[in-house]
């Protein structure tokens, strides 16, 4: 019986907890970028998903070049070495988009909705650029050791009936996400520039009066946002696979994560990311086998005990978004809705 409980927990860890932690980290990094742009530049940036795709694309091209030169990291994916190039490319693209599109509307103090619609235009341009450069197809660019521990190794190691696989990309995702978030919070809390950004987010006019240079705040915001986007995108691509269209689809769960946590609140975006990821995966997972381990034989379920079909995975974040907006529009951590 005790073995059964362990088996049940391993099963759940393998199919729900481990994938959800990795996916949640990716969503959190993406949602952080959305929430920063919303909090500081005051608009919902719909081009964020495709900014991720763009940064990832450059990281992939860099990975291929490194592979051609036979430069690698051994057990770790080569993409880690190429990631800085992807980050730089994403920063350049987002600064160019700001210079050519967003600045124009910001200077004339346009309503946020106009900036948001302009960001849809930027989204389409980035979307097309990615497809032109790398094509619309699926790209796998993971190399190095795929598993930290594979299901088969785990089974023979522990003698359990259920396997638990932990992939290198999943651990890497979590580690990089923790590092990036720690660095971001340190920057926002402890440095002068970070404090300036927070002041600007709180009250633009007061910040101006106290001598904060707005163009510098804008520049920093884009640099941080684009770095987070390229990192999140590359990690997502490593963990799953790169497909330009799926980055566009990520926009919905990322926005849901930012809003659930309270838009404009960095720690809210992180909590929201994990909440969305766990909901998506836990609600569509069939618990039949899990219950078989825990319940006595005569109570074994006949059906799959699946709350939602996997086809509805994407709609989970939509439902959460609607529920939050209806009952607690400021989100879990009291974000701002202007």
């Amino acid at each position, binding site marked *: 019986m005790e073995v059964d409980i362990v088996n049940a927990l391993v099963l759940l860890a*393998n*199919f729900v907890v481990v*994938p959800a932690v990795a*996916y949640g980290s990716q969503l959190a990094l993406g949602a952080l970028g959305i929430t920063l742009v919303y909090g500081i530049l005051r608009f919902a940036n719909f081009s964020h998903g495709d900014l991720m795709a763009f940064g990832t694309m450059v990281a992939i091209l860099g990975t291929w070049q490194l592979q051609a030169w036979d430069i690698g990291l051994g057990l770790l994916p080569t993409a880690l070495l190429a990631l800085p190039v992807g980050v730089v490319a994403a920063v350049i693209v987002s600064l160019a988009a700001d210079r050519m599109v967003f600045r124009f509307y910001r200077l004339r103090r346009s309503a946020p909705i106009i900036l948001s619609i302009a960001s849809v235009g930027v989204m389409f341009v980035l979307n097309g650029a990615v497809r032109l450069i790398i094509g619309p*197809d*699926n790209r*796998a660019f993971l190399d190095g050791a*795929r598993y930290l521990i*594979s*299901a*088969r190794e*785990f*089974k023979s190691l522990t003698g359990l009936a259920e*396997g638990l*696989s932990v*992939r290198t990309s999943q651990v890497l995702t979590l580690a990089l996400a923790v590092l990036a978030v720690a660095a971001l919070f340190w920057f926002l809390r402890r440095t002068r520039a970070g404090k300036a950004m927070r002041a600007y987010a709180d009250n633009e006019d007061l910040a101006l009066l106290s001598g904060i240079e707005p163009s510098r705040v804008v520049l920093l915001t884009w640099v941080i946002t684009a770095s987070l986007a390229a990192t999140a995108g590359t990690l*997502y691509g490593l963990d*799953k*696979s*790169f*497909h330009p*269209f*799926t980055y566009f689809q990520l926009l919905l769960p990322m926005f849901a994560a930012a809003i659930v946590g309270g838009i404009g609140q960095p720690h809210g975006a992180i909590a929201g990311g994990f909440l969305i990821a766990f909901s998506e*995966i836990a609600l*569509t*997972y*069939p*618990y*039949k*086998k*899990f219950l078989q381990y825990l319940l006595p034989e005569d109570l074994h379920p006949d059906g*799959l005990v*699946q709350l939602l079909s*996997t*086809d509805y*995975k994407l709609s989970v974040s939509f439902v959460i978004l609607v529920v939050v907006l209806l009952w607690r529009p400021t989100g879990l951590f009291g974000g701002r809705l202007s």
Partner: protein
Amino acid sequence: MRRFLLTFAALMMAASAAQAEMKIGVLLGFTGPIESLAPNIAASAELAMQEATESGAFLGGRKVTPVRGDSTCIDAAAATAAAERLVNSDEVAAIMGADCSGVTTAVANNVAVPNGVVMISPSATSPALTALDDNGHFFRTAPSDARQGQVLARVAEARGITNIGVTYTNNDYGKGLANAFANAFEAAGGTVALSVAHEDGKADYAAEVGALAASGAEHLAVFGYVDQGGRGIIQASLDTGAFDTFLLADGMIGDSLLEAIGDALEGSVGTAPGSDSPNAKKFQAAAEAAGLKGADPFSAEAYDAAALIILAAQAAGSTDRAAIRSKILEVSNAPGEPIGPTELAKGLELLAAGTVIDYQGATDVELTPEGDASSPYKEYEVMDGKFTTVRIH
């Protein structure tokens, strides 16, 4: 008088020149999801037409010319428009096409049958096409997936698989094949624990695999596409340790799968139309000599489809659409003098002399009364990192 005779002769020549060719429509998805396959399929069909033209034996030395049309593979309206043009403006005698099952059904219903034009598809495999109300106008040289489902069930049974999960790509092809397989497998006493569709083009299939694993299935049948969701399903299954070996349908047999997954596929089995018969090899050699990829999917089927149209016209002694229709089954099936690939000249001469022929072509084609091919399937097993043929069904 002399001038009159000259004019008359010139007119006669012009008339006979117009008479001197038979047009065959080549309706394939030159744009769309199979655009990478279509040029080779078209060129294979055109190889047969060229062979007939060069033989000089087709209806007393007439030429056979292809007219291409774009079926797009997925857009039924575009395919119908292209077929309308072929039939009404280019006045083709018959159509070699279309390719994907969905557009093929649309073209058959909206254009081919109403206009009395024969259509021979080299690649539409949906079981639903067998029951098409086509008045004997629709044929195909690719076998129906109803048959592939049976073959797959037999393969699974022979390997002692009794409980299996099925996942299929969410379209006519996947659904038809999954149904055919489930019927045959259950009739043989097996259990399909769960059958779920998967959408192509997603980044992550862990949720689908989780459901299949929870159903209690011990093995997994994947009826998808090698560069699409099918590969994602296999990757996710291996990542989570849910399934180790797979039963694969023709859409999954491709070297890119082996490249992407690697050693972990060892021991998986699959089926795809094809045979190792001398005729198949002969065609491949001839196609490669002509600069084509004869072993690529549906190349041999396209050659045979075009050849059947040409031979039927010869047997009928005219390029009349109805006459061609009435002769297709006669030239494709036994009895008669067997005709292999690259032997169109021989076949045309025999038909001109009134001898009955049995066209076997590159795929050993034999058509059922419904117009389906009953050609063989290869059973593959992944051994030493390669799809190796282990049996012919």
